[in-house]
């Protein structure tokens, strides 16, 4: 179902770091909020910390844009009933790829410039 206020994918980048990291964390597995925080912290070596309000605010925004979705009750793993798990949607995966490409281009451009030439 298409939400009336869904933004076209092309209009979304550049993504906020929090969005990017959450999407990235969910690209391999379904995770709950706290696990997303831990995954992001691990991946960035502690550089990006998603504090609760920002984390869940971002998850809410991502869900509204149908980039991630909450697992229904019978899909939820049994390990912790108090936690809600999320997965990446197809639309989310597309956006993640799009953003990764964009970043790749940026990095390439930087490499090519004389200032950063090795």
């Amino acid at each position, binding site marked *: 179902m298409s939400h*009336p*206020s*869904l*933004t*076209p994918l092309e*209009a979304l980048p550049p993504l*906020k770091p929090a969005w990017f990291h959450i999407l990235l964390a969910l690209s391999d597995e379904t995770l*709950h*909020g*706290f696990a997303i*925080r831990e995954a992001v912290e691990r991946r960035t070596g502690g550089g990006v*910390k998603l*504090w*609760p*309000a*920002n*984390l*869940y*605010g971002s*998850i*809410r*925004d991502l869900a509204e*844009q149908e980039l991630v979705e909450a697992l229904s009750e019978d899909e939820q793993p049994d390990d912790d009933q*108090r*936690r*809600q798990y999320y997965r990446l949607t197809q639309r989310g995966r597309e956006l993640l790829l799009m953003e990764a490409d964009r970043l790749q281009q940026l990095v390439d451009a930087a490499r090519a410039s004389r200032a950063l030439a090795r």
Partner: protein
Amino acid sequence: MSAPPVSVRWALRVYALLSRGLPRNFRTAYGREMALDLEAILQARWIARGALAVWTGALGACLDLGRRMARERVYRSAGRRRRGARGNGGRRRRDGEAGDAWRDAADDGLFQLGWEEKMRRELREFGLAARALLRKPGFAGVAMLTLGLGIGSVVTIFTLVNAILLQPLPYPEADGIVEIQHHAPGLDLPNLNNSAGTLTMYREAADFFSAVAAVNNTRRVLTGLDRPEEVELLAVSHEFFDVFLTQPAMGRPFGPSDQVPGATPVAILLWEEWQGRYGGDPDILGKTLQLDGVTTEIVGVMPRDFELVQPGPIALAAFPDPENLFGTFGTNGIARLAPGVSLEQAQTQLTALQARIPERFPDITAETLEGFGWSASVSTLQEQLVEDVATTLWLLLGTVGFVLLIACANVANLFLVRAEDRQKEIAVRAAMGAGRGQVAASFVRESLVLGVSGGVLGVLVALVGVELLLAFGPEDVPRLQEAGLTPGVLSFAALLSIGTGVLLGLLPMTRYSARSFTGILRDGGRGSTAGRGRNRARSALVMSQLALALVLLVGSGLMFRSFAQLRKVELGFVPADVLTVGVRVGESMSLQEAARFYQDLRERVAGLPGVEAVGVGTQVPLGSGNSNGGSFYMESRPRGDEDLPPVAMYRAASPGYFASLGIPVLEGRDMQPADLDGSFARVWVDEYFAETFLDGNALGERITWHGGDEEVDQSEWPWAVVTGVVGDVKQFGLREDPAGNAYFPLLAGDLGYPDLQLGFLTVKVRPGQDEAALTPAIRDEVSRLNGQVPVIRVRTMDDVVAAAMGGESITLVLLGIAAGMALFLGSIGLFGVISYVVSQRTREIGVRIALGAEQGEVSGMVLKQGLAVAGAGVVLGLAAAFGLTRVMGSILYEVSTTDPLTFAVAPILLLGVSALATWLPARRASRVDPVKSLREE
């Protein structure tokens, strides 16, 4: 998982409180998981890095929360705007339906910023500032802690000031309620209440009052329960309801007919009593209470929100309508100002009314009044209630204000250092075109974050502080129990934190005047020329800090001296190993029966194991009980017409009273059981009485308080013979001036004027034995003698004395804590500045040492610099202390506000601590290696 540590629990509580600012649906969807996450995060931080990390973590989480709240607000209003826009023909903004709510694209500033956007930017700046602070956890932690303690102590005391002094009393139009007092300095009676006669006069003649009520606290024995119980009542006249503008919620108020002699005694219950003891019985009206054996009908229940300012009373009892006499000023007079009448007008008219006393009361002439130094005054009930504690409270608030100032000075110093570290950054910013305002804003943002987090910590400190004060504070402070962190107090805390934050942030900017601001850029942030001015600013800060600390040191020193003086006060009795037990026989016994009862009880208690001496008296020194007093007659010294009559207090006692309390019998003999047979009136007086009124020859003199009847021959007056002279005893308070006191035997011949409704056993036990352990045995003896008599107010004499010192010691402790904090913070400040100066001058010192300066010379030089700052602080502080300690005059006891000892010792202490704080950096300076210091340059 084990229970989370305290810091985590508190942080979670604060977070939960703050998160109420999020929209409800957000909270419902994610609130629980957010709390779970934060708990896990903080727990992990605690295990890895301890409590400080918990708080920095909590701070980060709270800032994150704040950003989210602001964003949610923008989100929602953006949603509204979108809906509105679509309804308006669907005009769309550049970034489409999703709006700018969760996109930062608008940050490119290509179009005009709305307030929401500005707010977002500002919040992001705050986020950056917070992050910058978190990168310097040492600086941020120390600053936050210092501010937290400072703000916390101010908020704690302000909570008390607010509850006790500022909040209006909980009655409708409470500022119109006044208390009437009289003053007769000529009789040594600076404060008198009202007599039935004056109250009646005011009711009739004072149209500037709309109602005048008589109000008295009384205690009665409530029987008909499992065990008899002493209860407090407020006896009020029927005008009470007009003064307080409150009517009973059920039943009727009192009326004039309730107060005429022979009327059925009636009472109105307070709501809690009705709910508590009577379980809210709907048929309560018409039921009866047994008060002192008198059947009293319940005619009403006061509304739930009606509270009495002083705790205790359970009910209102109708006030008897006494004879219309001038004498006996034992009644509180409470009135309501007539509409439109100010307090000053009422005061003027009340004073004018006093001139009409002689025409109304024929036994009083204008000359007598003049001799009394007679006057009357009105003050608001609120002022009256808090009169005793107001000075102390304002003093404490001033004191903690000083502590906060000192704390701020410390943090300001930290900021100055930090500003120096940031010279380069500022230079770059200036180069990029940042104005003074923008640089100032960046400082202020940082200091605001610190101020506000200090404020949050301060509120936590205050939460604990208020609890401690409520638990350990004196019991008799009115309205103390109302103290709490109300929205008013929280707003005060918020203002205080924000104000502190802004001030701290602007301070470093004073160094960058418009001209020097461009200069920063030129000298690339080396700032070498500004060095001297900078150090001067910091030294000035430290100097004022030390001056403030000295004021507090002097203040607490004076308080300590006063306390020590009070400790030295001759009590006149020995409190150790003495238990006092109150027994109320009430009105159920005749005077003879009561005397018999006390005598029997005394004999039974004397037989208990471990008891050395037992007495009974109607009053315990420094404790509760009844004594009467007034002018008396001496047979050998008839009064002249012009003399003001001598005044003294008396109470009743039994044999053993003096012995059990360790009151020495100086002349004559001790009281003996035979003196109680009622056949011959005897009296014991104290030394002051004997010396002042009877020139030291008191034995055998005949005195009476009930003379003056001119129709009876003087020899027929009810005289009592002075049979002994005992030591002076502090009866009512440690600070009281000596005054004449007398003791009658329980049954003083056939006079029997001491009131025997309430008696106190004074039981002295063998040293080393626990006096309180006797209580159950004494209770048994009382109930064996009479099951209707309640045992009340069981206290050891040590507790009685401690309670009398209670107000003093809590003030002393609070002032002491404040002064200690001030000294500590001040010396830290000095240490910081001198250390910094030393580090700045390392090169110069290196050169000096290379040129042959001795170690001692170098450290002496640094020491001199430190002590110069401290010395200037001392001079300034002494001057301030001379001026400021004057406000303490009324709470000091036998210590001058310019007590030389205190004014000598406090500066020495301050200089000593300053020397220590300077010595450490001085020693480091003397060990500078010249080669190394030069190479480093």
